[in-house]
Every structure is written in structure tokens, then in C-alpha cells.
């Protein structure tokens, strides 16, 4: 078999909670509840749809997957497949996903196609990292990460095009919400890292996010914001790839998921992946600016994954010292919804609220409303 090799991993319980209104599918109890409410395993069907398209467009492709509902059951007739060990259980766990990914990587694959949501993407991230390009078949409840095709069909088409002709790869942010929090009415999206995804001109992009196709935009934003910060001594860089481009331009190695502080005078990274106290120490009595970018899809600006940028820190340097950066397509994807803040301090949240100028490029801004997250926010993106 000389054709390209596609790894396939399905999370059969993905999406099972959403269709019955459970805001996610993590945890055995929720899944049991979902079954009681009559949920079906739609991720297998959706994967089969993606693979049918792939079979038509990349017939020489060879599938490597695991037995049972985690892959084998989703492979349509007509595609050759190697089936490694697996599980017959349908109530799979995160560990099952991780184990399956590891097996496929060991066997050797050119692209990993997984089906699930943000939770599944996190499990994939844990094992795969940068070892192999990845593409998601959208099948979960939460899909804020930028790895998913806009539909099962487009995921299949993109995978086929990548395997047949190749494409550039670019990092895509992996985000997830704390589902327990969501069910309790509190939203906690967080950035966990990035996976490499194929970027194909002429093929529909992914669902959301600061994806690969935007790296040049982010670079332009970074240049523009640095031009505007001539009188600033310390830049506090929040999480995400958009703000990450600023670190890149400054020539320092920032942390994608953490908060860093840079001395603009010396160009030195003062502290990487800093906690609240380190940040407070870094900014004291200096002219500071905090650069933040909303998390793709959810529009969360503060309080989710960046708790280090705390109420106390913002009181210290002033809420005016926050500059928001975002690519235009990320804002457009919010469809007019506001950006959210939740520092845990109502006074600071309220000071941060209102209309903000979001920097979207050199000399380009968008006016975007910012609101406290507790003002009736119920994310629902099944």
C-alpha cells in the first residue's frame, strides 16, 4: 500500500450531551444521562460522511484506525483500512482517545482525522502535539477550537486534498470550556495549546479561531500595536496566538497559554508564564499596557485561562491600560456578540465594560462592546 495514510479516531460519545441539552458530554454520569434522554451516537455517522467524501476524492488513501466504534465502524466500504486494537465499548473515555492516538502515531500516519468536540481535541493535543497534522470532524457540543472543518463534508474534502496534493500547515488554537462550570451557569473557556492543521486555498476554512490563515494578519497587528506603544515601559502579554505574534516580533519566547511580561526598553522578557504576584512585581510603578485578545468563538477576553491578569493587577495599572487585539475574521465570527470579562471583581469588570477600540491592523480598529460575563451569557454552539 503506497497511498497516503490517514489516521482516524472517533469519540463515539462526542456530541451526545448537546443534542439533549447537556452542554457537553464529558464524564460518565452525563453520558449515562444523555442515553436516558435518548441521545444517539452521531459522531460515527458524521465521520462516515467525511470518509465517504474522502473515498471519492482520494481513493488511494489508506485508513489506519482502531477497532469498533472508535473508528472501524465509521469506515465506509471502498476504503482500505488497517484496524489496530481497540475497544468495543461505546462509553469510551478520554484515556481511550489518547491511547488510540498513540497507537496510530506509532503505526505511522500522514494526517490524523478525529471526530469529536473541544474535549476530544484536548485529548488529541495531549498525545499528538506537533508530531502529526490534525483535522477535526465537527461532532461535539463545544467547538471553539480552530481545528474543525466547517462540516463533516468539508473536513473530508480538506483531508482528501491535503493527502493528495499537500498543503501548508499552521497552528490552530485548542480551546475548551470547563463543562461543570457551564452546567452550573459559569463559563470557563481556556486555551490549552495548538495543533497543526492543513491550510488549503480554495477550501473552506475551519469553524472559528485564530487559525493559520491569519498569521500574517496577526503579524501586522503586532507591528501596529508596537508602533502605538512608544511611551510604554512594560507590556503584559496575554494568552493566544494573536498576542503571541507581539512576543514574536519583540524576539522573545512567550508562552502561548500563559501570561508574559516584557520590558520594551531593554527588549528583555521579564517573566514568562507569570502568576499574579510576579506580574504585580513587574509592573509596579512602571508605565504598562496589557495586551489581550479574545478567545476564538467564545469571545472571552478576561478571566478564562488568564486569571493571572487579575483584578488586583488591573487596579494597580488601571483598566485604561488594556489594549485589545484581534483579527477581523475572529471578530466577524462573533456575529455581533460582545466580548466578555470576568475578573471576579464586579467593580473592575464594570470599569472594563463599554465600547472598546479593538486593534485589527495598522491604523485599523473595530468598535466592540465589552460586558461582564455574568450578564446573562449562555454559550450554545452545538
Amino acid at each position, binding site marked *: 500500500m503506497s497511498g497516503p495514510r490517514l489516521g482516524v479516531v472517533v469519540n463515539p460519545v462526542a456530541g451526545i450531551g448537546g443534542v439533549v441539552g447537556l452542554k457537553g458530554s464529558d464524564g460518565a454520569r452525563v453520558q449515562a444521562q444523555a442515553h436516558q434522554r435518548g441521545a444517539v451516537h452521531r459522531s460515527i455517522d458524521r465521520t462516515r460522511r467525511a470518509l465517504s467524501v474522502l473515498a471519492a476524492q482520494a481513493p488511494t488513501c489508506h485508513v489506519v484506525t482502531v477497532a469498533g466504534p472508535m473508528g472501524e465502524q465509521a469506515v465506509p466500504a471502498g476504503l482500505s483500512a488497517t484496524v489496530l486494537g481497540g475497544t468495543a465499548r461505546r462509553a469510551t473515555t478520554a484515556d481511550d482517545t489518547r491511547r488510540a492516538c498513540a497507537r496510530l502515531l506509532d503505526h505511522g500516519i500522514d494526517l490524523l482525522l478525529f471526530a469529536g468536540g473541544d474535549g476530544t481535541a484536548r485529548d488529541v493535543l495531549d498525545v499528538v502535539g506537533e508530531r502529526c497534522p490534525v483535522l477535526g470532524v465537527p461532532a461535539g457540543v463545544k467547538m471553539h477550537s480552530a481545528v474543525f472543518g466547517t462540516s463533516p463534508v468539508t473536513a473530508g474534502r480538506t483531508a482528501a486534498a491535503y493527502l493528495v496534493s499537500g498543503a501548508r500547515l499552521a497552528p490552530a488554537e485548542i480551546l475548551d470550556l470547563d463543562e461543570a462550570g457551564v452546567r452550573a451557569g459559569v463559563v470557563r473557556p481556556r486555551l490549552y495549546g495548538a495543533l497543526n492543521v492543513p491550510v488549503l486555498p480554495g477550501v473552506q476554512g475551519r469553524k472559528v479561531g485564530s487559525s493559520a490563515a491569519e498569521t500574517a*494578519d496577526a503579524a*501586522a497587528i503586532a507591528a501596529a500595536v508596537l508602533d502605538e506603544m512608544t511611551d510604554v515601559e512594560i507590556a503584559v502579554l496575554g494568552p493566544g496566538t494573536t498576542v503571541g505574534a507581539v512576543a514574536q516580533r519583540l524576539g522573545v519566547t512567550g508562552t502561548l497559554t500563559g501570561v508574559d511580561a516584557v520590558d520594551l526598553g531593554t527588549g528583555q522578557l521579564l517573566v514568562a508564564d507569570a502568576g499574579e504576584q510576579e506580574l504585580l512585581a513587574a509592573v509596579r510603578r512602571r508605565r504598562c499596557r496589557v495586551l489581550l485578545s479574545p478567545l476564538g468563538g467564545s469571545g472571552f477576553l478576561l478571566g478564562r485561562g488568564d486569571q493571572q491578569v487579575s483584578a488586583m493587577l488591573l487596579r494597580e495599572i488601571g483598566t485604561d491600560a488594556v489594549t485589545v487585539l484581534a483579527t*477581523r475574521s475572529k471578530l466577524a465570527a462573533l456575529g455581533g456578540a460582545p466580548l466578555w470579562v470576568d475578573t471576579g471583581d464586579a467593580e473592575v469588570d464594570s470599569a472594563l465594560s463599554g465600547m472598546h477600540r479593538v486593534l485589527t*491592523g495598522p491604523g*485599523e480598529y473595530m468598535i466592540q462592546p465589552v460586558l461582564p460575563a455574568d450578564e446573562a451569557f449562555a454559550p450554545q454552539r452545538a
Partner: protein
Amino acid sequence: MHENASPSPTTAHPYIPNAAPQVRDGMLAELGVNSVDEFFADIPEALRLTRPLDLPAPLTSEAELVRHMESLLSANVTTRQALNFCGAGCYQHHVPVVCSEVNGRAEFLTAYAGETYEDHGKFQALFEYASMMAELLEMDVVTIPTYDGFQAAATALRMATRITHRSGLVVVGPVGQDKLSKVYDYVAPVATVEHLSADPVVPVPLAEIARHVGEDTAAVYVELPDAHGCVDADLGALAALAHNVGALLVVGVDPIALGVLDPPSAAGADIVCGDIQSLGLGMQAGGAHGGFLAVHDDPRFVLELPSRLFGLTPTGKPGEIGFRDVAYERTSLAARENGNEWVGTAAALWGITAGVYLALHGPQGMAELGDTIIDRTHYAMQTLAGTGLVEVPGIDRPHFREFVVDLAPSGRTAADFLKAMAQRRIFAGVDISAESGSQQVLLCTTEVHNQRDIDTLVAAVKEVLA
């Protein structure tokens, strides 16, 4: 019904099918709406016009409209009734009938932004236009037309500032005042312009140009033919001068001259721009213009072009060729304010027309055309100078199509002269005395002026100035 608005007419205008009352009422009923006015509910009362527009009574009958238009336009004297020697940016060349036939086809005339499939013919015709211009210009990249030669020059110069990251522009030799006005306004946000103008007698000396070109120069701009019709600019020397300091050479050219003249790229031009009005568009009172931009196939240049580019692509059927947009992300359509300047509806049909013109003429036709124009231009210059009543400055320099005539020997003003000539049904050129400071007119002779026309002109000049 809005209470103060004019009532809707009870009969439908012939252009508006659904204004027929029965049709309209049927559609309203389908929507469960009583009156069209409900559709405007979001427009606040205070912003409504509370009276009918004050416009002339409609000429709904086509027959009446035709009578009115004929009556209005009959006050024009056409260049078929008078002998025209005006040029200065709008040139009276012959328009081959096939050009008019093609651009009058409803399929082309009324198409717009259709995609590569259903408007395949448009894409091919425009690709072929660009390709034939590329042969004439000997440059591998030519854009879909922009508005006109003014815009092409202005954009070429802004491109030069983006490519070189510099802000100085040096314009050499005679350039039309109107074009300069457009260029100054357009480059003002990013560049400063020095114009080294010249009288018609001698070109701007190279040493003089060298003094103004330096490390901050983005581009040197020169025209061929220049605004006085001269075609002796030393492009090779200018290219070397510009390239030596890292600047570009931008050349404005009328493509109709390139059957007989070397393409500017051969001498080292980096961006070539101009107007395609000469190529079968006709005059239309100065309304028929299209601009072109040409560069070498170098991404540093190509990615700075604002206009659309159509490239060849294979299709799913073996042996079939299609066309698609190249590097679309450059454009404002894809990237709004991040694009290069902007691209909008400009002059595509004129591009198709110019393509037909070049296909009809071929290499031989373009060469013969150029020869005829040079011959008649110099015949006119020599016979006019021969009257002794006027001077032809720069008569020893090679000219193409246009030349300056100085009325000093006659003591007459240009305005008087043109008026007297017009009484003889001759439009004897364009008054340039305001910009030249002398009583001068700019005359234009093309392939449509035969020897007898020029003799008629000369005879009239003798009568008027004697």
C-alpha cells in the same frame, strides 16, 4: 400610503413589470401587507421626503424620449461635421467596426461580476486582452483595466513607493496638466513629487535629472510619447540613472505607438502604464478611457497591483482551459482596507475592445499604423512651419501624433486663432498657452487625417493668420 407622498401611478412604466397594479396587489396579498409603504417602516418619518421629487415631467413614451434627446444633442458639432485636430489625451483614431460590434453585444455590455464559469467568455476575452498587451509591451503581467491613464500613472507611482519603501517621485518632461493634478492628489498621502518640466524644444538634460534623483527616490516617471508628442526620451539612460540609486523607472506609454517603437521594458522600465483609449475605444467626448498597468512577473511587483489579474488554470476536463483570479488577497474586495488601494468597477469592456483592436491589427497593422501616424505628423509639422506664420518648436525631434505650434510670429493669441479656425469648421488644436506661458496650441494628427485634411488645415491657417 405615506400621507404627503405622491400617489403611486396607476399604470406601470414599461421598464417595471411588477408595478402593474394587479401584479403589485397580488404580491402584497401574498405577503399579507396592505401597502408598499409598510416596507419603509424602519425609515423615520422625519427623514422622509414629504413631496414628490422636483424633476422634469417624464418622457415615458420612447418616441418622445428620442425626440427630446436628438433635439438636445443636436447642439453639438461633431468631428464628422468639422475637421478635428484636438488631442491632448483624447485621440481621434479610427474605430474598427468589429470593435463596436463586439462591445455592443448585449452579452458583454450587460454582464458584470459573474464567476469564472457562467462568465467564462468574459474571463477569456480579458485574459487575451492582457496577453496581447503583454506582447506589445514585452512584459509578462498586465492587469485588467483600471479607470484610465491618470489612475494607472497614479497607481504605478504609489506602487513604486510601496515596493521601494521610499517617498520621492521625480516626473520628467512634459505631462498633461490634468494628469499631473490627479497624480498629485493621489500620491499626496505617501509621497512628494518633483516635476522637471521642459519646453518643447529640448528634452530635460540627463545631468539635470541626475541632480534630483537620489537615495530617497522611489521612481522616475517619464512618458512616451510625451505630452508634446516627442518620442526621443532616452529610456535606457533614465533606467540606468534610476536603478543605480535603487529607484524604479516608470514609463507612461500610449500602446498605439508600440508598433513602431521599442517597448519601454526593453530599455529597463520596471512599471509601464498608460491609457488604452487609442485602441478602438473612440472619443465619446473624453468619456472612453481605460488604464493599464504592466510589470515583470516578479512577486515584489505583482503583489502590489491593486487590479484584478486573471490566470490560466486547467479544468476537470482534459484539454480544457479556464481562468481564475490570481493572488486575490491583494485586492480590497478580499481584504477591504488591507488591500492595495482599491479595486472597483473600472473599464473591463474597454479592455475587451482593445483586445479586439490588437487582434485585428496584428503586428503588421500596428507597424503600418505607427508609420502612417509618424509620416502625417511630420508632414503637418513641416507644412505648417513652411507657412512662416507659425513656429513648430522642436521640429527636429521625432514626434508621434502631437506637436506644439507657437503663434508668436503671427502675434495672435491662441484663443483668437482657435476661434477663427472653428468658424471654418476646423478644431485646430488645444490651447496650452496657460501652462506654457506662450501663445501655443497643441495639434494632433492621426491615421484618420489624410494629406488633403492637413492641406486644408494649412490653407486655413494661412487665411486666418495672414
